[in-house]
């Protein structure tokens, strides 16, 4: 049986991810940006599947594309879209911003190319059917304290969001 993780799928998913990421930051209408962001998130989930991480891919689809994006679309509906259509989408320092970000990206790629020899070339053998089980075991044994702290963080975020968004407390 040939593996699904072929170079063709990698390049296709990466191209979809990067092109829709560019669409996210260039569209004038925030709703179009949100829809492009969903495409980016779904293609990243495909890349996670290619990396033999099915649990993270599922969490990505359910939590990001399902939960966070609904929150974004809901807030976009609450604010004024017509005004955003009329006025400038970019601020005055956009050329230097684009330049600085591109230099940062080039720096990353340069460092990766220079350090490519220390990256291991043979992937570890990870049985895919037990992936979810092993992630769960790691979460509840080695990472028990960070797991509980994350639940506390979510509680604080819920309380904070309600406090911010409510008219009077």
């Amino acid at each position: 049986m040939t593996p699904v993780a072929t170079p063709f799928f990698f390049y296709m998913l990466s191209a979809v991810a990067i092109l829709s990421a560019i669409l996210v930051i260039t569209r004038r209408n925030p709703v179009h940006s949100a829809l492009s962001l969903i495409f980016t998130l779904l293609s990243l989930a495909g890349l996670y599947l290619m990396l033999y991480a099915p649990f993270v891919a599922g969490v990505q689809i359910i939590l990001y594309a399902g939960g966070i994006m609904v929150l974004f679309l809901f807030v976009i509906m609450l604010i004024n879209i017509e005004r955003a259509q009329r006025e400038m989408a970019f601020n005055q320092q956009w050329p230097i911003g684009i330049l600085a970000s591109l230099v940062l990206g080039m720096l990353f790629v340069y460092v990766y190319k220079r350090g490519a020899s220390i990256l291991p070339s043979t992937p570890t053998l990870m049985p895919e059917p037990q992936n979810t089980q092993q992630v769960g075991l790691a979460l509840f044994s080695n990472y028990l304290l960070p797991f509980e702290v994350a639940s506390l963080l979510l509680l604080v975020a819920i309380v904070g969001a309600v406090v911010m968004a409510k008219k009077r407390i």
Partner: protein
Amino acid sequence: MAEIGTLHYLVVAAALFAVGTIGVVTRRNVVIILMSIELILNAVNLNLVAFSRMWNLHGQVFSIFVITDAAAEAAVGLGILIAFFRNKETVNVDEVDLLKW
């Protein structure tokens, strides 16, 4: 075509990170800035999962923590956005100057 290694994923993640940074630095709409922050966090996640393919599962566990952080950040950020829009009727970052002298 050559075999796809860790370096390919790292370069894709670097490109996504750069695009997200451009969005944060150049856009005026706060909603799109928050979406660009999500892009940056996703680039970090892709790095973590790509490394976890080569070593062990801990990268995947960390990427789940990053997703949790992203959810909390989106909730609080959008709450602040709603509160601000109620006060000033705008969502542009360069008009947010209430704390300036």
